[in-house]
């Protein structure tokens, strides 16, 4: 930029006269005198190796949009990949609300000045509590894998036991996050992850194996509904009973969009439920739309006391009929007690929480029932059409919600080949399971939701028919 002053539109006080006036008030010649606080040997004296500024908004926008345009979106191609981040329809009102400048820009402003943010959070908690049928809901954080790991650590603190039982067909990605949180087993404070089997015919958990492996040393039994492979788990009540018989907690991982039609974890007797709120009206954002929740029983205060995430309670004010919302037991968190707190909290996913609140309010009980029914009907329609293609087989139980396993062994082609060819038909195929589940052969996990209509599904089927040939 040479000698010309750099007065950026985002830096008002870069105006030389302003800067001079401020320095004069401080009795300083230059800001260098302040930087004298950094010893010379620690000062960086070069020029940062980053490209020169793209100055105008117009040119910058052209440049960045040009990069983004190299992406192909799931509005351009049909997307049938889920596996932890799912394409559901996002109502326009959700985007309208979460794009409001006040919500986009707010951070940790106080109970009064940011009141609306707190009220919306409480409404999210209240509506999610209805969906999962549990009285306690905490403020969501990063994603499902993270909150599953935190739920296990929570169970460890509550029970004083250091092992959890997890179904062997849990999402491998989720499991990696869990293992990071649970520490290497050699460490004294580690939480040990043990596995129980799943039924290769149905995709449900193997209750016999759970019975055989469970004893009084486990902090929790975890199960998922639907399972990672898409099956609706019908044995939740039995899992809960087994866990409780052995003094362990029952922790359910759930996809909340299923809960208009499926029995919620609270009704099944789960002590803790966790999962991802991304399906509730949040764009996929290449996975950035994910956000994990923890809900829990509140008949015993231990669950709230050991919950690692922020908790918000409703309060009243000096004026009758007025409500406020404030953080409860703040001492419990890392903000209150540093390394003596329950895990840690940090900047998490507040905007998605508000988006999910709007979504739940828009959908209501009718919307949730219908979206569940449509997901089931259309995914089964897709499975039916795909299963009719020579060499293609649908694996596992017919009890699935929106995801199902499609096996291509009979086609003589790999999933990778199928998916690559599907791109030529402007289709993103299902998640390739071959590396994760070798016993399933050349299989992919397909996801069909209310987003995909009959024509989309038929396009998929005819494309698969062609590429599998």
């Amino acid at each position, binding site marked *: 930029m040479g000698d010309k002053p750099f007065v950026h539109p985002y830096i008002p006080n870069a105006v030389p006269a302003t800067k001079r006036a401020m320095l004069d008030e401080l009795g300083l010649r230059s800001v260098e005198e302040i930087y004298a606080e950094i010893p010379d040997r620690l000062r960086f004296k070069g020029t940062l190796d980053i490209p020169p500024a793209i100055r105008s908004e117009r040119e910058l926008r052209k440049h960045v949009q040009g990069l983004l345009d190299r992406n192909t979106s799931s509005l351009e191609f049909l997307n049938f990949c889920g596996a932890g981040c799912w394409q559901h329809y996002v109502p326009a009102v959700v985007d309208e609300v979460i794009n409001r400048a006040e919500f986009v820009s707010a951070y940790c402003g106080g109970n009064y000045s940011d009141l609306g943010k707190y009220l919306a959070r409480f409404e999210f908690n209240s509506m999610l509590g209805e969906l999962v049928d549990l009285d306690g809901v905490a403020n969501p954080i990063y994603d499902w894998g993270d909150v599953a790991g935190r739920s296990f650590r929570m169970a460890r603190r509550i029970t004083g036991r250091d092992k959890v039982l997890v179904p062997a067909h849990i999402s491998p990605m989720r499991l990696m996050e869990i293992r990071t949180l649970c520490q290497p087993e050699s460490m004294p404070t580690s939480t040990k992850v043990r596995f129980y089997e799943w039924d290769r015919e149905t995709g449900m958990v193997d209750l016999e194996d759970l019975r055989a492996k469970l004893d009084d040393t486990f902090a929790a039994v975890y199960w998922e509904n639907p399972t990672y492979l898409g099956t609706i788990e019908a044995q939740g009540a039995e899992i809960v009973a087994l866990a409780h018989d052995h003094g362990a907690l029952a922790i359910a991982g759930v996809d909340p969009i299923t809960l208009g039609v499926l029995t919620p974890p609270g009704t099944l007797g789960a002590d803790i439920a966790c999962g991802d709120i991304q399906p509730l009206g949040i764009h996929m*954002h290449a996975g950035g739309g994910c956000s994990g929740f923890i809900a829990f029983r509140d008949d015993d205060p231990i669950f709230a006391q050991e919950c690692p995430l922020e908790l918000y309670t409703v309060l009243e004010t000096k004026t009758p009929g007025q409500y406020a919302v404030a953080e409860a037991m703040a001492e419990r968190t890392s903000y209150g007690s540093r390394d003596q707190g329950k895990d*840690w909290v940090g900047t998490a996913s507040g905007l998605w929480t508000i988006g999910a609140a709007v979504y*739940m309010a828009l959908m209501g009980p009718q919307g949730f029932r*219908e979206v569940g029914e449509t997901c089931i009907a259309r995914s089964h329609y897709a499975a039916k059409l795909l299963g009719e293609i020579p060499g293609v087989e649908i694996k596992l139980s017919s*009890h699935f919600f929106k995801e199902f396993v499609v096996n291509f062994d009979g086609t003589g082609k790999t999933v990778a080949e199928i998916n690559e060819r599907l791109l030529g038909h402007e289709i993103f195929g299902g998640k390739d399971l071959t590396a994760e589940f070798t016993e399933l052969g050349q299989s992919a996990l397909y996801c069909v939701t209310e987003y995909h209509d009959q024509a989309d599904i038929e396009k998929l089927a005819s494309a698969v028919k062609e590429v599998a040939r």
Partner: protein
Amino acid sequence: MNSQCSRAVEGGAGGAPFKEAPQEKVARLGRLRRDGGMLRDYHAPRYDEPFIMEQGTPGERGIFVPLAEEGVTEAVGAAADYIPEGMNRAAAPVLPEMAQYQVMRHYLRYSQMTLGMDLGSDISEGTCTMKYSPRMHEELIRGHKAADLHPLQDEDTMQGLLEIVYETGQYLKAISGMDAFTLEPGGGSHAVFTNACVMRRYFEARGELDQRTEMITTIFSHPCDAATPMVAGFKVITVMPDENGYPDLEAFKAAVSEHTVGCMITNPEDTGIYNPQIDKYVEVLHDAGALAFTDQANANGILGYARARDAGFDACHFNLHKTFSSPHGCEGPATGAYMCTDKLAPYLPVPIVTKLGDRYHLEYDRPESIGRVRGFLGNWMGVVRAYSWIRNMGPDGLKEVAEISVLNNNYLDNLLMAVKGVSRPYAEGHRRLDQVRYSLEQLKEDTGVGTEAVRDRMIDFGVQSYWMSHHPWIVPEPFTPEPCETYSKDDLDEWAAVIKRASDEAYADPQFVLDAPHAQAIEQMRRTEALEEHDQWAFTWRAYKKKIRGAE
């Protein structure tokens, strides 16, 4: 700009300019605007809006959902047939039944009852770097080319995304001096946790994990620098400040041993004090075979002026939602950038983004990796914004950001120190960089009005409530503003005027301040025992109805 506010009058002794004394200046600023000052005659929007759970009418609905077509239902039958016995939800969830306009209006009212940063002149939230988030970036990430990507779609169909992640990583390497990066963490604390796990894996790989069990931090480092190594399985040792507010070097040396994993410390610390001996701390660690990480949540004032690598650190992090302009979104989604040297690079979480020729790749095959801290690719919305912001600033712009944030901070400091009851503990004679931790201990002693009451009063003038301090309150009755480069001189004057006004009120009529707020959507909160007591807290409306309403 009000030229009167910045006048420096020539003619002091020896020809040096003399200025309006800070005390006189804050007295003038602390009047309402119509009286020549900087205070707004403000009132927050007040809608008296009921909870959505109490609104609506059975049968109303906010949106139509696609229904299965006739051809679909003819082919597969009823959805209920595919739900196993016992899994068919018996009672519908008790959710609002409300038409679309009414739902939208409800949440728009809530947005108006949120001051946020864009309306609130958010100098207030120190340690958070509340800078302007360019609107153009929001338009970029809301388009389908960004918002509607699936994380597992073929690499070839998201080359733009991968290029942005990769190049942002290169820029952050230049800014920190580090060799490698990941942008997977979902926030600053998450990046700090990533560090604890990377260090854990480093020593696990060397067979030293049994021996090295202790992580060192300082009390003025962010709480996550203490909490996340605990979660990773380490014992945490916290070093307290010496009389000058610096971490005590002797105490630090005494804490380091063959059991030390490393340190996780913030510099500049939350006090705004840059530790001039920071490289000595790093040396002590390295001599003991330990590692050094610096939390760079407070990096805004040192961009282009100092790099973590040059002080010897093995790793550092940045908050893309603070220093690099991505908005905070009511506490997320956010992006933590974790940076490290080649020594620690093998342990980074998967996948990492690499470049081969002109193609970008996601590399998963990394056997030494810690695994994952977050699913998929992280929150790359923040990466797009950071990328765009860095490209818009360039190397000179980044230095200008740092310089003006430091100047702003010292200018505001000059005014605040002229306010009765305000003090600035520690490091007398040393200037702070990006922020300052002040104390209202004197005000509390004199008037009974402490920092929480001032926080709840200041918002009545239309500025955001200030960040007091992380716990514990080593500085009594603390508050921590951070006037980053976004704020104009008038903004700074206004903020000082608000604190001046609160102080004046506290000395004149302390009860009035203790009863604050007075110009908000609601009055002061009651039944605060619910914050701690099981039979009183209600985290959901259903719990409230059972516990509180049911008991009435």
